[in-house]
């Protein structure tokens, strides 16, 4: 029984990581209806960025991430402003194809620079520290921090979206592009800001990706699929839904792994397909799209 309870707790904690992966994707889709096939690879790219900053300056990853954040914000802003804004329109293919091309470029570029070796962010004692919950169950400090960060990110995104002028502009462009433009909103800049913000979330996700497990340049696409599944399970257009979607996915994977370790990933995918069949608009839908 303890085994199952432990699996459930670990599942919720893993779900925190998936919610972090998904929050960036959810944000980009919410504002500009862009489905970014390079999302997973961008997470891996950010993890390498943190690794390099931490390595070169001899910093702890938690400090290095503070330096990486503004850099990645600028990269995200520029990527949207220079490249991705050109792909948006009625036609679905250009954004899909350009982000897919980007995914291949990032993956192979990282392979070229860093080789296929596994990497890890090192942060000393905190990596192995754990908190005992009694009854033989202990939770790692890093997984716990991941979940808390995911919740904080969701709270902050909600605050930005519903309590600030820039959030109002985000919602306006999301609701009606033409009218937002008529009201004097520069959508190119708004989209670029949204991508910059998404890159901030991506970098936070990357920190925990690198602290919790090994990573290498090829693991991006799988993270994209987890992020996507969390967004769809939760329902489009709601950040809290995305958090719930991440938790459902994390639970499904750890329950699957508890039955047979080889079934972890498959169980997550199957949970996603089941939700798609039973509740095609997700568990907490909001957007009408």
């Amino acid at each position: 029984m303890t085994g199952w309870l432990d699996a459930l707790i670990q599942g919720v904690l893993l779900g925190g990581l998936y919610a972090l992966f998904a929050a960036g994707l959810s944000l980009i889709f919410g504002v500009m209806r862009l489905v970014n096939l390079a999302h997973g690879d961008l997470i891996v790219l950010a993890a390498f960025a943190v690794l390099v900053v931490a390595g070169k300056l001899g910093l702890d990853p938690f400090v290095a991430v503070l330096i990486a954040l503004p850099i990645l914000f600028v990269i995200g802003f520029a990527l949207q402003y220079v490249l991705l804004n050109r792909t948006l329109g009625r036609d679905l293919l250009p954004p899909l194809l350009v982000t897919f091309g980007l995914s291949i470029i990032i993956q192979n570029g990282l392979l070229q620079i860093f080789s296929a070796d596994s990497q890890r962010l090192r942060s000393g004692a905190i990596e192995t520290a754990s908190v005992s919950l009694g009854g033989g169950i202990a939770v790692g400090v890093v997984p716990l921090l991941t979940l808390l960060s995911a919740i904080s990110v969701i709270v902050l995104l909600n605050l930005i979206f519903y309590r600030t002028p820039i959030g109002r502009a985000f919602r306006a462009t999301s609701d009606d592009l033409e009218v937002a433009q008529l009201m004097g909103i520069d959508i190119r800049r708004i989209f670029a800001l949204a991508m910059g913000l998404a890159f901030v979330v991506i970098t936070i996700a990357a920190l925990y990706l690198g602290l919790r497990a090994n990573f290498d340049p090829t693991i991006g696409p799988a993270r994209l699929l987890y992020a996507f599944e969390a967004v769809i399970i939760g329902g489009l257009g709601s950040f809290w839904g995305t958090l719930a979607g991440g938790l459902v996915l994390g639970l499904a994977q750890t329950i699957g792994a508890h039955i047979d370790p080889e079934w972890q990933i498959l169980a997550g995918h199957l949970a996603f397909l089941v939700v798609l069949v039973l509740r095609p608009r997700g568990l907490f839908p909001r957007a009408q799209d």
Partner: protein
Amino acid sequence: MMDHAAAKPTQAFRIETAGRAPRAAAVAAIVSLLALVLLPVVVGRNLIQDLIFLFYMLALAQCWNLLAGYAGLISVGQQAFVGLGGYLLFALTLLGGINPLLAIPIAGVVSALFALPTALIVFRLRGAYFAIGTWVVAEVYRLVFAQFKPLGGGTGTSLTPSVTSSVPGIEWVKTLLDLRTPAARDIISYWAALALMAATLAFVYGVLRSRRGLALGAIRDHEAAAAGLGVDIYRIKLAVYVATAAMTGMIGALIYLQKARISPDAAFSVLDWTAYVMFIVVIGGIGTMEGPIIGAIIFYLMQRYFADFGASYLVLLGALGILVMLFAPRGIWGLVSERHGLTLFPTRRRLIIHAQDSKRS
């Protein structure tokens, strides 16, 4: 406009697709097909193997073009059916003892049977979400086959020599051309690949020339307008999805008959069976039949001369795809046909109005 038309009641018109140039192209197609059939008599084994690769990539590209270029179903998960076809061939021949050439069409039928329930799930997702949904499904297929121990589980398995040499016609080719078994096997695979490629072209061409093709062209140009004109979008998309899954499954079966070794990671590779295929279609020109042919030839040449550069070659490929999408979204064929009004596969309908009536009235 109404009065104008009523004043000339005898005005005649007809709808034409094939002009004179395409008729010449049809003759050229038959001649080049014959030449390709006889090619193994004169050229070496390396070129034959290269052409097998070119043919199946072209066939896959035509299928994906029909899906994405016409039906608006941008799938990133066609590797599901390549891998499924490959695994079906292995299961049918190794476990079922069925003749490999017979196993290919069976793999196609079974792929279609798998595609139907798959479609019912992924069709719940729209547009870009459909794309990632198909990718998830392909991952599910990969993980399930990785659990299938009789075919080697995660590490995969190989065809036994008794299977690979049981392909009909090998003995005949061996004695006719005085070759050893592996070379003769390549020639049979070459003919099978040529036949599948030609069949795919004929199938896509036939579909596009039919009433359904008109509906597909309408969906490509404007989906909402097509629905407004009475096109049953869901049904036609479902039909295209299932039909291309069957073709893709057969191509997958053939690919893995030729490779004689399968593993889940290779058979369900998104890079090999979807990314490259997308690249071919987009570079050549999406939404045309000529585009994928040009794209496949370009891809074959790049693969041949640059693939050794590994990761940087893929970076180049990705960058080229992005540049074409941004600056020439209709691909190379789009640029050519825009300038010269050229078509090899006439699928576009033209309204021809006769001016005879003006004399009479």
